[in-house]
């Protein structure tokens, strides 16, 4: 039996990598991917705790998160394409205004 701490540490590392990448990366698609990474880190903790407590809520939450992530990916990619069409760039530092 692998102790819960291992899962949590792994999740923390994954989450921190996600945060760091989110803060460092300029390409909006990389930023997007780092968000997915953070979500997965969270999913991992949910599953780990669900397993530990022998309860199903954590597993179900993971499904919700995946659903949200999928929806986000669909909408987000559409937004990214729209931004690229108008600004001709995917560098987040250059699209720091809400308006054109």
């Amino acid at each position, binding site marked *: 039996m692998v102790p819960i701490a291992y899962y949590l540490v792994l999740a923390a590392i994954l989450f921190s990598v996600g*945060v760091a990448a*989110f*803060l460092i990366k300029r390409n909006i698609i990389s*930023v997007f991917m780092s968000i997915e990474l953070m979500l997965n880190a969270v999913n991992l903790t949910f599953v780990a705790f669900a397993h530990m407590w022998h309860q199903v809520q954590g597993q179900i939450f993971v499904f919700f998160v995946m659903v949200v992530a999928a929806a986000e990916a669909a909408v987000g990619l559409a937004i990214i394409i729209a931004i690229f069409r108008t600004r001709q760039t995917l560098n987040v*530092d250059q699209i*720091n205004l*809400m308006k054109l």
Partner: protein
Amino acid sequence: MPSSYLWLIPLLPFTGFLINGTVGRKLPRAAVTGIALLFTAIPAVIVAYLWMIMKAAGAPELIQAVSAPWIAITGFQVNFAFTVDHLTLIMLSIITGVGFLIHLYSAGYMAHEEGYWRFFAYLNLFMFFMSVLVLSESFLLLFVGWEGVGLASYLLIGFYFKKDSAANAGKKAFIVNRIGDFGFLLAMFLLVTHFGTLSFTEVFTEITAHPEWHGGFLTAIALLLVVGATGKSAQIPLYVWLPDAMEGPTPVSALIHAATMVTAGIYMVARCHTLFDRSPYALGVVALIGAATALFAACIGMVQQDIKRVLAYSTVSQLGYMFLACGVGAYGAGIFHLMTHAFFKALLFLAAGSVIHALNGEQDMRKMGALRKRIPVTFWTMTMGVFAIAGLPPWAAFFSKDEILYRAFISDNPLGKLLWFVGLVTAGMTSFYMFRLWFKTFFGKSHVEEPAHDHSHDHGHAAHSHGVHESPWIMLFPLVVLAILSVIGGWVGVPAALGGHNEIEHFLEPVFSTGSPVAEIAGSNGLELTLAAVSVLTALLGLFVAYWLYVKNPGSSTAIARKARPVYKLLENKFYIDEIYQAVIVFPLTAGTRVLLSGIVDWGIVDGSGKLAGATTRGLSTLTRRVQSGNIRSYAGWLALGAAAVLAVMIFGHSLFMR
């Protein structure tokens, strides 16, 4: 009951003020005149009725009308109360009688002016406050009238408000009077602390009940009251506003600044005689102020060229006489002179107004002369006024002025003889400057500029500029009545030495004998006659000098002025008092205000705190607005930081805060 009529005396003019003040603009002039005259005539009738009641045998010496309490707190009460005693009755007669005549005159004088309704509304307002002033039974209600007449005076001095000089003169009168009012207020505070009441009767009864009270706080109260009186009655050091008040229309000068309001200070001192009698020191101050003012103003009056200004300084001087009378304890003589002065000074002002009217607004006596044939009625009525004020028998002021001089001479004031001498010199000077005015205006060569061009003078008569003309009868009638009064007005006070028995002082005795022992008059008929002869000779000397200078040897006055240049300059510039006030009080005050109030308080503290608050907010916002950059990654960074902070609190916070 007569008491219910008392309310009508102030109430009617107030109604007139309300009507003319609100809808007067839309009414035709005749209606405005009718309202203003009616609401001043009825009070005059009521006053006449009061005379009948009080003259009747067995009639009360005091008519009271007390209404519900006005201010009532635990241990202190002021009633809204009116009383009429003999003193009030005389004052009321002057106010309503002379007031009505001046209203009548104004209807002619102001006929071509703009703001006709406004003028009559103000005049009625003045009548309201003045009657409140004399009817009042308490210091507080007197103060209401006192302030009210000040307001009316301010409004009327500044009647031609489009002219800077008029507006400034109004402000000057108002501000100078506030200084006096400060003294009056302090006196009232002292009265409340010492007596717990402001009612005249209660205060004076209290004083009478304590014959051992002398000086002390009574002197303090009396002196503070004198400060108030010097403001209203234009005495040294607060006289400077009255000459400037001549910027108002001439009827205003006659009514307010000669006959009624300015005498309020004398009335107040006379009313409070019980208080003053207990403080020889305060009385001495009153006498000295009066004598000094009389002499001082007469000096200035001798060299003025503006006909109204001569009369203004003459008023200041005559008010000084009344103060002098009160100061030597001869309140009756003071009120007597107040009455005769109201007649002849109102007459002189109105006649001067008639001259000014005849000359289309010219007020400079150097541009007059030889007018006696051209405006005969004005000339003859004014002659009566001039002879009256000069103190020649049998005109009115001879009796009142001589009574004052005589009483000063025999008074127990250690300076009595000096006061008499100052009064005598002033009488001579008065005679001189009044005959100077008379000769310069009506005799000699004509210096009148015939109106070849438009006189756009301050008077506003420019609209109907034509040659010298006599005034209409609506203006001449009051002149004639006042001229008759100026001749015979003094006969109510013929002294015993001349075969009369001084009715007016006997009439006032019930008022002035209460609360203080009637001083036995230690003089003799022989002395009184001698003094009278001396003062008549002095008046004749003044007449002769004026005649010699301005008729016999015209031009010699300028030669003398040139020889005594420094003195003449000093007089012509009114001893530079205005300049001294400007330098000593006004300039430091305005400069100090500019530096301290404007510079430090207003700019530094008031503006500063506002600016500081603004700068703080802006500084903080400069810091925080960097957060809202629109940069996604910085938002995420803050978010992460926040999350970390929440996490930290959740982990360590328990041990930190929930200990």
